[in-house]
């Protein structure tokens, strides 16, 4: 396999790797700047870079101005987008958890990526913006040719890194930035305009992202998605710098650039770079976040305390569930078989939303890789049924078991990570699946390679599920059973234990709860549900191909789960219906289905700002206020959170045993 001639390519690839590293460094420095000053991990960093790069494309390629004008336009656009994000969607969230701010940046990611796809084409070829000639010079003393573009990129990256470090260290404004980073409240007391400092960090960080975006266009596929996910490389570099050290971030970025480039000497698999990134993310997280100090020094993702209503109006709930089930059985009868199929897919996607209800709602861990768990179920069923002639049911069972296994594996690093870092990890998992594991050439006997698995519908208890309505009823049954199971889970020991862990890990552990086992169990259940959904989707659609389980869908399903409310089991159905019928509805409007992620992203941003609990719990809360139920036990008198009133204390005193 290894041709000895390959080694001769090493110096040339080193130059390519360092150049790539320089670009990652730029994006990562922007990320670190924003994170340090405003405490927000900006998942939209790659999307901002991408959108700005397309502005440069518009100005210099489409409109024909010089490339430098395009770069300037991109920098202005990047800064402007950064300002808008901070001023209108991050600043209103002051005092909210870091996770809700991250969710907003995810919303922006969806919005910007979709908008760019609508304007410039999601997968079309775009001519890169070439700032500097690709002609170069021979590196002194060697035969390696370094392009002027590569040389400029490295110089610009290092220059901006040094410049940022210098500004932070030696200027008054840099000092106030560091002060805000340490403690915004204290900085405010010292007369620092905290809002202005934060806005500047967003503008500067985004502008740096814009430069990175323009520079990277000749080096990777210049399309909205490829550029957006550069954020993962930026995160990896930033993590190596512990999200604080600029010099380590640059070193990390260079290392990452090289590590992603070298495998290409030996492997034709384009996804090898993704695998390397994934491995590095894992390694960095594992090294930086060692166990032992976890319980005391937790990297707080911020807690948002939403009291769970202690009482429930059970009879009313039963009526609603029965009515909804009745409607669910009858209404699709009146629809065409096309809509019956869509209804079935809604419920299957609803299962994926439900899997997030377990993970995010109960454990408080966010995950952007639920579609990857679903993919495991789907491809296990696809390869076993389509490729090896297995019958559907054992294949589905095996798919669920595999998904549980992988879920537990993903859960192991997650044990040490709080929400934000877990979010990075799960995105890395998704990309690993998309670009490596399921990519043609990596494991074709599982993924089907460039072709897709085709499979027919099974029969259940002797009834064929080939008909649209029969299959729909079957999915309805599975969905209701899953909802019931998750509801059981949330109101029994598991639910209490997981909520307890979310409230206080240290108290749960010292009360005898095995944190590891329970968190992994939750990951397993969640992944198993997603795997079940994947297996059903495989037979529902009748074919499985890699493109169906993409990064964007994982983000969209997580976004929808958050929008409808991850703490509510009932939200799953609403989420599934929205995710399937939303795009369908759009085909009947002047817009197209391509607009859907943009709408989801916008709703997500608005929802986090307006109804933090989620839409469905919000309705339920209103409903409860209209139909209050009799509490099982009288509630404590409403007393302020200070000392109890004397008469209350006196009333309790007599039962105390006196010694």
């Amino acid at each position: 396999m290894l041709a000895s001639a390959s080694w001769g390519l090493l110096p040339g690839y080193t130059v390519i790797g360092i150049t790539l590293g320089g670009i990652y460094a730029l994006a990562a420095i922007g990320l670190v700047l924003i994170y340090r000053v405003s405490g927000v991990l900006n998942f939209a960093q790659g999307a901002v870079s991408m959108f700005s790069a397309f502005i440069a494309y518009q100005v210099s390629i489409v409109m024909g101005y010089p490339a430098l004008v395009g770069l300037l336009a991109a920098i202005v656009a990047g800064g402007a987008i950064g300002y808008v994000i901070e001023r209108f969607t991050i600043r209103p969230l002051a005092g909210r958890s870091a996770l809700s701010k991250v969710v907003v940046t995810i919303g922006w990611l969806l919005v910007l990526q979709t908008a760019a796809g609508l304007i410039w084409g999601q997968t079309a070829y775009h001519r890169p913006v070439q700032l500097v000639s690709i002609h170069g010079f021979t590196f002194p003393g060697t035969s390696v040719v370094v392009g002027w573009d590569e040389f400029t990129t490295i110089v610009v990256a290092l220059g901006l890194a040094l410049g940022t470090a210098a500004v932070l260290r030696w200027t008054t404004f840099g000092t106030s930035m560091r002060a805000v980073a340490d403690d915004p409240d204290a900085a405010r007391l010292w007369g620092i305009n905290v809002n202005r400092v934060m806005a500047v960090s967003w503008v500067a960080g985004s502008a740096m992202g814009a430069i990175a975006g323009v520079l990277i266009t000749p080096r990777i596929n210049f399309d909205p998605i490829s550029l957006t996910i550069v954020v993962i490389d930026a995160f990896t570099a930033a993590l190596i710098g512990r999200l604080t050290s600029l010099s380590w971030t640059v070193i990390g970025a260079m290392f990452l650039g090289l590590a992603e480039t070298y495998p290409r000497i030996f492997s034709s698999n384009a996804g090898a770079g993704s695998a390397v990134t994934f491995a590095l993310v894992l390694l960095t997280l594992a090294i930086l976040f060692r166990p032992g100090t976890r319980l005391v020094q937790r990297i707080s993702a911020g807690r948002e305390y939403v009291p769970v209503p202690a009482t429930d109006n059970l009879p009313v709930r039963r009526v609603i569930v029965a009515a909804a089930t009745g409607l669910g059985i009858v209404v699709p009868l009146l629809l065409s078989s096309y809509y019956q199929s869509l209804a079935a897919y809604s419920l299957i996607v609803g299962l994926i939303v439900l899997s997030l209800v377990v993970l995010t709602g109960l454990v408080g861990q966010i995950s952007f890789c639920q579609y990857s768990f679903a993919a495991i179920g789907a491809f296990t069923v696809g390869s076993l049924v389509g490729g090896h002639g297995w019958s559907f049911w054992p294949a589905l069972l095996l798919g669920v078991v595999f998904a549980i296994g992988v879920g537990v594996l993903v859960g192991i690093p997650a044990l040490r990570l709080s929400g934000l870092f877990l979010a990075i990890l799960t995105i890395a998992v998704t990309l690993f699946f998309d670009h490596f594991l399921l990519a043609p050439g990596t494991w074709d006997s599982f993924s089907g390679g460039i072709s897709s698995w085709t499979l027919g519908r099974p029969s259940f208890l002797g009834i064929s599920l080939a008909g649209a309505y029969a299959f729909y009823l079957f999915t309805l049954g599975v969905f209701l059973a899953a909802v019931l199971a998750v509801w059981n889970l949330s109101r029994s020991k598991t639910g209490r234990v997981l909520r307890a862990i979310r409230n206080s890990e240290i108290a749960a552990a010292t009360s005898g709860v095995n944190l590891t086992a329970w968190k992994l169990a939750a990951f397993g259940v969640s992944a198993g549900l997603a795997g079940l959904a994947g297996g059903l989707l495989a037979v529902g659609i009748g074919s499985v191909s890699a493109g169906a389980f993409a990064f964007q869908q994982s983000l969209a399903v997580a976004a929808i789960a958050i929008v409808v409310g991850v703490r509510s089991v009932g939200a799953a159905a609403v989420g599934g219906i929205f995710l399937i019928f939303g795009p369908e509805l759009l085909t009947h409007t002047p817009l197209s289905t391509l607009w859907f992620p943009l709408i989801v992203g916008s709703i997500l941003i608005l929802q986090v700002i307006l109804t933090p609990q989620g839409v469905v719990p919000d309705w339920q809360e209103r409903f409860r206020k209209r139909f209050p139920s009799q509490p099982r036990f009288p509630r404590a008198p409403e007393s302020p959170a200070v000392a109890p009133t004397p008469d209350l204390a006196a009333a309790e005193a007599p039962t105390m045993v006196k010694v």
Partner: protein
Amino acid sequence: MAPLLQADTVSMSFGGVHALSGVSFELHRGETLGLIGPNGAGKTTMFNCITGVLPSYRGHIYYDDRDLRNLKPHQRARLKIARTFQNLELFDELSALDNLLLPLEAFSQRGVIGDLLRLPRTVFDERQAQEKARAMLHFINLGDCADTPAGDLPVGLQRRLEVGRALSLEPRLLLLDEPGAGLDARETAELARLLASVRARFKVTMLIVDHDMALIMRICNRIYVLDNGQVIAEGSPEQIRDDPQVVRAYLGEAPAIAAGGAG
């Protein structure tokens, strides 16, 4: 008989700060031991070492003649070591009743599968645990607040709920970390009564950390005084009250502070 808990030259440092340097003490069965000392003396650190929250201490901690070294916090809890926290660590979202239910359930073998299917056995177990939790709720006098989320209770009641949660574990060793912090005189008196009744009813061995000398003097048999991560005195409440070294640690004579600053 060997002591229930024995700390043998336990040391713990955070960076250059020596929170504990060679602390040794013994806690006998049935005793109520007080651990006092000025702020930063290392009292809470000691608790964190005993409960496994800080596993990387040097020295040894023996419980029932068994070295706790490699046991995780939940495993130590299963050996019936329970604790409360200085900065209340209740499960805010759970109701008061569920807070007490949690340690009971953590010990049961019921797992996810039983919960998913809600097997009859699960329901039966849950009922039994609820009865126990309800009894505990009445014992700590919070019977009226069963359904109130713990986070909504006033601080005085939260302190008692934490004691109740620790007792739900049916502990042999109960560690109380500043149970009186943030309470007024009346609440402190009630707490002292509660702790006395805990001792009478549950026959539990207690280790109490507090600043409130009145509380400690009232309920402890014996007292250790910690300062700068070292034991500086040990004895009965009367002996401790008159010990000049203790007085110096508390009132902060100049040399003592200088030594602390250097460490």
